[in-house]
């Protein structure tokens, strides 16, 4: 039982980061109908920016802000510079350009910074609180959960309760109609990319201090798992990302603890296959699917 509580708590913190990264994929899918396969590499580049600023100023928060800004800039730049030039209504070129971007960014980071792992220190203690002798969440875990929850809530508000969010959604669902209503659709796509990569960068910034250290591949596995999460939850559904993120985090933690580490990717694959066989559009797929 103790072990279960411990593993569940660890899975919750992991799940929050997963959910946030998955949400970033949902954002870019909803606003630009694109799956950004370069999300991990772009987030890693943003974390390098944060790392450099923290090293120079000594302030974690300055680094965090820089990382978010760098992520937003990278996202906007990728959309303006590359994605916009691709033919609409065909997903393949976007995916392939993103793969190219992964190669360029990761190789560029490795050339610029070398392959070493650079330790990043969390702003709060990672020493867990003990409840009945069982270590549960640490202050840093709580920070992670709070940051992820706050960003998710803010994004939900932005999308559902503000005129800007309305325009973002309209531009994604029906670009031509939106343009006829005076919505600056290209600007919305840029904004969607910027928001998405910034959210992904935040997830990466939360994750890396708990990992071995910063390196060009530090975010790869998070992306793969988060992509699985987004697909399981339904690419159009922010709530699905949250649900599937927490669920997958728990699953990975429990399987690792009770079975073995190598069984975890198989468990995720199995969960994904199962969900997609029953619901091909993910757990919380919208009722009326749009194909464009």
């Amino acid at each position, binding site marked *: 039982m103790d072990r279960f509580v411990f593993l569940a708590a660890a899975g919750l913190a992991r799940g929050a980061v997963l959910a946030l990264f998955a949400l970033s994929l949902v954002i870019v899918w909803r606003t630009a109908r694109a799956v950004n396969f370069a999300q991990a590499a772009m987030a890693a580049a943003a974390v390098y920016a944060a790392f450099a600023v923290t090293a120079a100023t000594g302030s974690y928060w300055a680094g965090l802000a820089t990382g978010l800004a760098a992520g937003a800039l990278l996202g906007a730049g990728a959309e303006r510079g590359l994605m916009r030039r691709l033919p609409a209504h065909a997903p393949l070129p976007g995916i392939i350009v993103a793969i190219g971007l992964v190669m360029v960014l990761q190789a560029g980071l490795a050339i610029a910074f070398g392959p070493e792992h650079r330790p990043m220190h969390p702003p709060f203690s990672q020493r867990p609180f003990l409840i009945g002798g069982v270590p549960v969440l640490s202050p840093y875990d709580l920070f992670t959960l709070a940051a992820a929850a706050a960003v998710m809530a803010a994004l939900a508000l932005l999308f559902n309760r503000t005129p800007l969010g309305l325009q973002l959604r309209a531009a994604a669902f029906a670009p031509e109609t939106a*343009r006829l209503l005076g919505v600056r659709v290209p600007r919305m796509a840029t904004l969607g990319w910027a928001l998405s990569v910034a959210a992904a960068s935040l997830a990466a910034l939360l994750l890396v201090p708990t990992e071995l250290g910063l390196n060009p591949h530090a975010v790869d596995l998070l992306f793969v798992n988060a992509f699985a999460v987004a697909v399981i939850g339904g690419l159009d559904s922010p709530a699905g990302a949250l649900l599937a993120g927490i669920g997958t985090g728990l699953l990975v933690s429990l399987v690792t603890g009770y079975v073995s580490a190598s069984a975890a990717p198989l468990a995720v694959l199995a969960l994904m296959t199962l969900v997609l066989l029953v619901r091909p559009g993910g757990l919380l797929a919208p009722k009326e699917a*749009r194909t464009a």
Partner: protein
Amino acid sequence: MSALACEGLTVGYGGAPVIDALDLDIAEGAVVALLGANGAGKTTLLRALTGLVPLRTGRIALHGRDLTAESTEDRVRSGLALVPEGRSVVVELTVDENLRLGGLWRHRRKALDAAAEDMYALFPALDRRRRAPGHTLSGGERQMLALARALLARPRVLLLDEPSLGLAPKATAQLLGVLRATAARTGLTVLLAEQNVTGALSVADRGVVLSLGAVAADRPAADLAADPALRHAYLGF
């Protein structure tokens, strides 16, 4: 002064042009019916006017201002609105969201609320379904919503593409009635592309007949409605 003027408009998707060196001038406050058989180029002309289809040659001016180089969004923001053919309602959004979307660039928050209430007053059927998602609306409701959404932004020139398509005669009459009344009240300029010749000519001042991408006839509406030869030649009845 002319509200909408185009000169030498040529549009094509490769191959032969769909619109061929077309000149058109619409006076401020006029309601013009754009008529023609299927494939005459009505939809293409409207899409070209709003910038959804690129021009090969020609220029477009709105109240004397050259729009040719502007994007669709900017043309809309200068007062040119298009209610496209078919179901242009964003099905994922609610009626209220769809409606407000039309006026976001135009109004501040308070003014937007007021403008939306005006539209609900104009279309009571929509008022009853404010929170309904777009995909639950009937064809008539969707068309009303699309028109209301366009009017919300107080355009100076409104382009409509087949608003009566698929609607019951009663709904068509109601829609065209609202349109006529609004035009009369606000001085809105309307270009109405229609297959429903009788309905269109009943609300229009002037009728323009397109054939093979060029203007085949341009006369007062009453005149056109009364000319069986012309009707037979270009409009197929």
